[in-house]
Structure formats: C-alpha cells, structure tokens
C-alpha cells in the first residue's frame, strides 16, 4: 500500500515537472526553473508563471478532483460504472458556461464564463437535492442526477440551436470539449477555494464508504449516518466538479477510469481508493495535458477529446479482463 502511494506521488511530481517544461518555447530544464522561481521579469518568467504554471496546477487540481469524486461516487453507489458527472453538476456547469459564451458575457470580462458555469453548477446541485429529497436511497439520487443532466444537456442544445452565427456555435462546441490551454492564475484562484472545500468533504467519506460495502442497512446499523454521508458526497462532488468544469470544460472518463484501474491495487477498499484515485487522477490529467501538447502541437488538440480517446479503449480492456475473470 505504501509502495503504491510513493509510486503515485512520484509520478505526479515527475509529470508536474514535465508539464512545466513542455511547450512551444523549447527551454532547458535549469533555465526554465530558475525563471520560474527567481523571476528576472523577463519573457521566460512570464511564460513560466503566467502560462505553464497555471496550466500544470489546474491539471493537478482537476485530475485530483475527478479521481477523488469518481472514487467517492462509485463507493457510494457501489457501482464501478458511476462517475462524478452522474449527479448532473458537470452538465449544468457546462450549460452555464455555454450561456455565458452565447450572451457575450465571456467576451465582456475574463471570469464571466467560469462564474456563469459555477452558477449553473450551483443551480444543478440544488435541483438534484430537491428532486432526490433528504432521505431516500442511492437510486433516487441517480434518477435525479439523470433528470438534471438531460435537462442541462437539452438546454445546452437549445442554446446551440439558437446561436446567431456559426462562429458562436463553433466556440461553444470547442469549449465543451474541455481544455487547459490559455488558462491564467485567476482561474486557479477561482477554482482552488471551492476545490479545497470539496476535497475536505469527500476525504471524510472513507469510513462510511467502507461500511457501505455491506449495503445501506448494514452500514446504518454500524453507526454510519447515511443522510450526512450523501449530503457530503453531493456537495463535495458539486464543489470539485463544478469548479473543474467552470475553468476547463468537461473532461470525461477520468473519474470513471482512474478508480477502476486502481481498485485492484488497493484491495478494493473504498477508503483507500479515495486517496489513490486522487493521486491517479492528477497523474492522468497531467499526462493527457502533456500529450495534447506533444502529439499535435500545431492543432490545439482538446484535453477532453484525448482523455475520452484514451479512456474508452482502456475501459473496454478492463471490462474484457473482468469478464474473463468471472468465467
């Protein structure tokens, strides 16, 4: 277990450094690091501090968020196919962002888009909690999430449908693919407080999720408050996924694939999977964000496209492996 923690931490650190060093301006290792830390006010410092650092930080934050929320969601629903987008937060955040693009708010001021996306996420999570009610089983939460997701999806389609010109539609479609390019430290500061709250809430769930391995009834009899658990899960997920979607768009498959890959390595214990998936998610998004810069540097390959392209076959492979083991 310790070995896995060390390996994942080292991978995150190595990929973070690599992310700082990869870019169109080919600069040496020592040169770029000294520019980052010492800061001589030159153009290289600007590149490191204003372009590459926020990008690498956001990759870690968003990856960790998706991995953690995915592990928590799978643990709560006791279903390996669950993912953080299930409760409709990413869909409603995307709708808010799309509305900001459509109305021109995003062009009017820099943080208009992420702020609108956060408003969308908040609306979405309130709607989910209203629909699912305070008690209820995990099934009502899934149904409420599906309802809100499809509502947000259809509203997004409506905005696309009514978009005044192809360029606006184009911008919306590209934004929805998810990317970390051209983000600033303002995006980091916007997302970080919410993510800290969300990480804190989700990190508390380990004990309850372990008990839920034996079902809701047994967990409740072991002293786990299911209402509190669910509230922490929904609010925590909404904080991290809402903030992540607001600054980077929808990045799929990370929250689904990472817990799935790491589960066998932690003895399938939901509590251990929480921290393992946090590190694993950060590593995966960092790696994917490096890949989009290396594979097609001239074409602005979108991060969300790449994670889905890599994630889907990986997921298929895992399903096939699992099927072979069952027989």
């Amino acid at each position, binding site marked *: 277990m310790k070995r896995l923690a060390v390996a994942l931490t080292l991978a995150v650190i190595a990929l973070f450094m690599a992310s700082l060093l990869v870019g169109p301006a080919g600069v040496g290792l020592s040169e770029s690091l000294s520019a980052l830390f010492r800061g001589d006010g030159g153009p290289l410092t600007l590149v490191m501090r204003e372009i590459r650092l926020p990008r690498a930080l956001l990759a870690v934050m968003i990856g960790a968020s998706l991995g953690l929320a995915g592990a928590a969601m799978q643990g709560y629903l006791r279903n390996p196919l669950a993912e953080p987008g299930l409760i409709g937060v990413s869909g409603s955040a995307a709708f808010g962002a799309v509305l900001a693009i459509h109305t021109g708010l995003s062009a009017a001021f820099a943080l208009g888009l992420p702020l609108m996306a956060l408003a969308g996420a908040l609306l979405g999570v309130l709607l989910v909690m209203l629909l699912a009610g305070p008690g209820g089983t995990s099934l009502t939460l899934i149904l409420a999430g599906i309802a809100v997701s499809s509502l947000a999806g259809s509203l997004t389609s409506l905005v696309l449908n009514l978009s005044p010109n192809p360029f606006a539609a184009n911008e919306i479609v590209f934004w929805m693919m998810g990317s970390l390019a051209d983000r600033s430290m303002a995006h980091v500061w916007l997302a970080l407080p919410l993510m800290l709250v969300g990480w804190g809430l989700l990190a508390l769930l380990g*004990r309850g999720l*372990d008990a839920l*391995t*034996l079902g809701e009834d047994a967990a409740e*009899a072991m002293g*786990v408050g299911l209402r509190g658990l669910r509230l922490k899960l929904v609010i925590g997920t909404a904080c991290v996924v809402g903030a992540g979607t607001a600054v980077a768009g929808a990045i799929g498959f990370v929250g689904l694939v990472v817990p799935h890959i790491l589960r066998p390595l932690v003895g399938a*214990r939901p509590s251990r999977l929480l921290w393992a998936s946090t590190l694993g998610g950060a590593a995966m998004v960092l790696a994917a964000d490096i890949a989009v810069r290396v594979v097609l540097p001239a074409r602005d390959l979108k991060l969300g496209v790449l994670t889905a392209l890599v994630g889907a076959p990986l997921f298929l492979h895992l399903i096939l492996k699992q099927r072979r083991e069952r027989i």
Partner: protein
Amino acid sequence: MTNLTLSRLSVTLRRREVFRDVSLSIGGGEFVGLIGPNGSGKTTLMRAALGVLPHDGTSSLARLSPSRRARTVAWMPQAREIAWPVSVEDVVMLGRLPHLGTGQRPSANDRAHVDKALSRMELDDMRHRAATRLSGGEQARVLIARALAQDTPILMADEPVAGLDPAHQISTIRSFGKLAESGKCVLVSLHDLGLAARHCTRILMMGDGGIVADGPPRDVLTPDRLAHVFGITAWYRDTDQGPVCQPLEVIR
C-alpha cells in the same frame, strides 16, 4: 447485561399496518428464534427495533445514539451484500468500525477479535481470498463472522442460515447458541422450524399483525398454532436426542 426491550412497538408502512403493540424483553443468555410466514413482519420488526424504520412505541435500541447503538447491537440483514472484491479479512474487520475512532487504525485487540470470529466460522484458510469470489454459503459465513467481530452484547440476524448446507446450518445455529450461553442476547429469524425447536431457548411466533406466541419451543410450536399461523401440520416430539419438529402437510 444489556437487554432488548420493545414496548408497544407498531409499524405502518405505506398505510398498511405491518404489526401493532409488540411488547417484549429479551435478556442476556437467551437465544430467541423469530418465526412466522412470509410477510408476517419478521424483518420489519427487527429493523424497527434497531430504529432504522419509522415506528410508534419504543425500542431500547432505537433510543441510543447511532454510534452507541453500533457498539450495542450487531445486525445482519437478510440481503447478503458484498459490493467490492475485498478480502474476507477486510470484510470481517468492518465489524470493528464502530469501535474505531475516525482515522484510527485497528489495534491488536481488534485483530484478535477478527481472528476469533474467523476461526469461529471456519474461515481461517480463506482469509485472504476476495469475498465476492466465494460461494453463497461461504459469503454468509463471512458476514456472520463480521457480525461476531462487532462484539456487541446483542446480536440480531435476519435468516442467517438460509442457503447454507445442513452441516453449516447446524454449526452456525450452534455458534449463535454458544454466544447466548456466554451471556449475549441473540435474536434470529428462521424459517426452519426444526432448527428453531432444537436450538432456540425461546421462540417468538409472528402472525395476525403481532406476536401470537412467545415462550419455550414446546409451548409455542403446538399443532393448533402451526395450523392457524402457518397452515401446516407438523410432528413434534421431545425425543431422547432433543426436541424434533418436522413439518408434514399443508392444510389450506
């Protein structure tokens, strides 16, 4: 010793009254079998006694705080759910959760309880296997071991022996009996009247929206009651090898 006391407990689910005014007390050392036809409210009675169902009347367990209750009663639901391929040892260790503070690691004492529960349910050689890959009967034993590891004065189990082979049915019931002999209070719902007659010290028979009989097996399992509540005839004798109850025919 902690008792389980219910007074005028009533449950109404979806405007259907499941049972009303159930009052009883179970003390340490008693091994109580809860019998009754399907739908007579056995599971509902146990869940209401735990306080996980809305109910009228009082239950000594439902009044406790959730964490206190978890150290007072171990509950084995009928659905044998093990969601993830965790090791047998890890499943049994979950029984120690109520005794651990947040973030606290299991102590030597916790491990000793787990070891004892594992060997009691003859699971020593499977302790590192994934619980989901075991057979249904083996999983049932793992979950019983989990409840034993919780080490509570009261133990409640909903049909713990359903689906076990005869040898394991008998040894499981015996281990519940031994727990009662050691001073614990044990309440187990059963469908096997023979096992109930032979091993339980007291039987509660449910029917007609309440408890219809409460007492030692020989007084509860009378032909009239079995005919009225279950609609069956049965052969009951106190033999030199202990009481034997064998259901015979359906009479309605």
